[in-house]
């Protein structure tokens, strides 16, 4: 009954978080050593050129004044100009973001459904060989950084077996589908080019798996442990005692309470997928926003850095709101706050 109130409360709270975030991002980007004017214009630039650049970009003003200039632009959708690409940062983001969103989307699906299915499987076969194998995988998944998995998959599928294309978003010779959303699979499906959609999907599959794997096994572990723990709780024993079929019990009465601890963790994992994507994007030469952000950082391209991190921040906050809502849906104790 209070779900609406709960959601509004969360959204208001997150606006405060985003304002705070913007201040932190802005300050850090400018505190990091290195002269942005010199980085932008190169070693041969004259003193006058550097000074002009600083004045143009308000770099001589105090930080609060600079922030004011920046945030008024951001609120109008203007993140400033990138000094590396010489284009508006907003335009760059719009170009690179869909590629990352596409990978992250498939990773998210894999992370959610993979971890629940694996967790259920492991819980069902508790303390057997299957559980043991899955346990090894989950420890390996937690211990191995995503880029190691990425390189292994790249070697196996792209080099040794050559079954799945691994570099870029499309095979050479394929033309990109008309730009509708920027998500190739979706665009190709919408325009009816199924071969292109399939090719794009194959290109996404390996990066998406590499990105999701660690978190997936970790969350599967959480689901498994919660299911094992809850399976001896009296409320399940009671349901069993009333002759409720095992399938209903496992998929309804056991699964729902067991998802609560995993969902919070999944939310963090999903939110970090975007940030973690930059290594994967570098390895698979994927033209995504993380890669763009990384090159901006190396060039101390202030507007691009702030813009990219701002996007990450908003995504992170948004995912957290969604997770909070899902947890509240799953767990009435949070939604209703106990008592009457």
């Amino acid at each position, binding site marked *: 009954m209070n779900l609406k109130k709960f959601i509004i409360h969360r959204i208001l709270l997150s606006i405060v978080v985003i304002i705070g975030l913007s201040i932190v991002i802005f300050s850090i980007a400018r505190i990091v050593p290195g002269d942005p004017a010199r980085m932008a214009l190169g070693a041969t630039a004259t003193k006058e050129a550097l000074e002009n650049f600083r004045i143009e970009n308000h770099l001589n003003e105090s930080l609060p004044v600079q922030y004011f200039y920046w945030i008024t632009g951001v609120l109008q959708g203007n993140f400033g100009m990138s000094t590396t690409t010489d284009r508006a940062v907003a335009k760059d983001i719009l170009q690179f973001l869909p590629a990352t969103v596409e990978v992250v989307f498939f990773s998210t699906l894999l992370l959610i459904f993979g971890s629940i299915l694996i967790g259920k499987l492991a819980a069902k076969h508790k303390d057997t060989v299957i559980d043991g194998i899955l346990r090894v995988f989950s420890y390996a998944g937690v211990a191995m950084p995503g880029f190691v998995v990425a390189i292994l998959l790249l070697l196996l599928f792209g080099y040794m077996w050559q079954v799945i294309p691994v570099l870029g978003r499309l095979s050479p010779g394929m033309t990109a589908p008309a730009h509708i959303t920027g998500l190739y699979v979706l665009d190709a499906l919408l325009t009816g080019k199924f071969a292109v959609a399939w090719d794009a999907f194959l290109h996404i599959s390996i990066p998406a798996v590499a990105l999701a794997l660690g978190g997936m096994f970790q969350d599967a572990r959480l689901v498994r442990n919660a299911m094992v723990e809850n399976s*001896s709780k*009296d409320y399940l*024993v009671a349901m*069993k005692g009333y*002759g409720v079929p095992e399938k209903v019990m496992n998929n309804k009465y056991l699964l729902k309470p067991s998802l609560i601890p995993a969902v919070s963790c999944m939310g963090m994992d999903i939110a970090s997928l975007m940030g973690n994507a930059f290594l994967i994007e570098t390895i698979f030469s994927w033209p995504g926003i993380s890669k763009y952000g990384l090159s901006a950082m190396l060039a101390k391209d202030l507007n691009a850095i702030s813009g990219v991190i701002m996007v990450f921040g908003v995504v992170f906050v948004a995912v957290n709101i969604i997770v909070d809502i899902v947890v509240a849906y799953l767990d*009435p*104790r949070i939604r*209703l706050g106990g008592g009457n």
Partner: protein
Amino acid sequence: MADDKILEIKDLKLWYKVYKGYSKVLDGVNIGVHKGEKVGIVGEAGCGKTTTVKSILNVIPEYQYIIPDGEIFYKGKDILKMNMKEINQVRSGEISMIYQEPANALNPVFTIGQQMMDVVNYSKQGKGKNKAEQKEMVLQAIRDVFIPDPERIFDYYPNQLSGGMKQRICIAMAIMTQRDMMIADEPGTALDVTIQDQVHKTLNRLVEERNMSLIMITHSLGVARELTDSIHVMYAGTVVESAKTEDVFKDTLHPYTVGLMEAVPRLGGGGIQSGIYGAIPDYQYPPNGCRFAPRCSRVTEQCQNCKPELKDVGGGHKVACFNL
């Protein structure tokens, strides 16, 4: 005599799997229940009462235990040898159980209504009825345990109810459909005494109205005396004394039962009573002979080495002790 027993537990042994070995909790439990009889199982915490009744419905998760020996006959059929379909028939239509902790016996993330509807939906009596009829059964059951405004309670989550309400909902679940037998595992223990008394009265009335057999687990001899026809006293996984309720109180024989009786605080003073010295044995390495021997005042050498059988000492009063 043996023929009209609706339930008979014969020499049941149940061992829980623990790290490096077994915890030998039940060591030969013998309990019989006649049709319409109200049976009490009494004993201190950890003596295997709950394990015994849970094994009647075979609801302990399989990976946790083994049953090396024993039989549980329900209407002439051994429950332990039943297949999934047969045991589910017993669970869904014949025996119902009220679990010890009402706070844990209701799923925290589903409403009372959702849970009760599923219980009805998969019960022998509610199967095949339409949703409205099933819902009426649920609401009637909630009314039967004296909860006002069942429609509102139907949409509540367990955490919105008080302890006493939860306990009543648990009872409502157990009495929703007509059953032959009810197992009540310490109903009301988690509640304060006035609510406990109401819960017991409600339970007793329903059992009598519907002519059900009742197995009632309790710590309290007073409750057992009030509500039961016969009593089985359990100690450390064995039944040490079983008799008609009045015989147990009139003619207490087993030293453990004697100790239990002495431990009951009485109106009129004396302060806290003596109780029984010591604690229940380690189930992983239980004593060889009588399991009560380490705490018993009448212990002899025979008790250390041999296990006493449950023997009839006259009039159906059975005791497992060498030194009466």
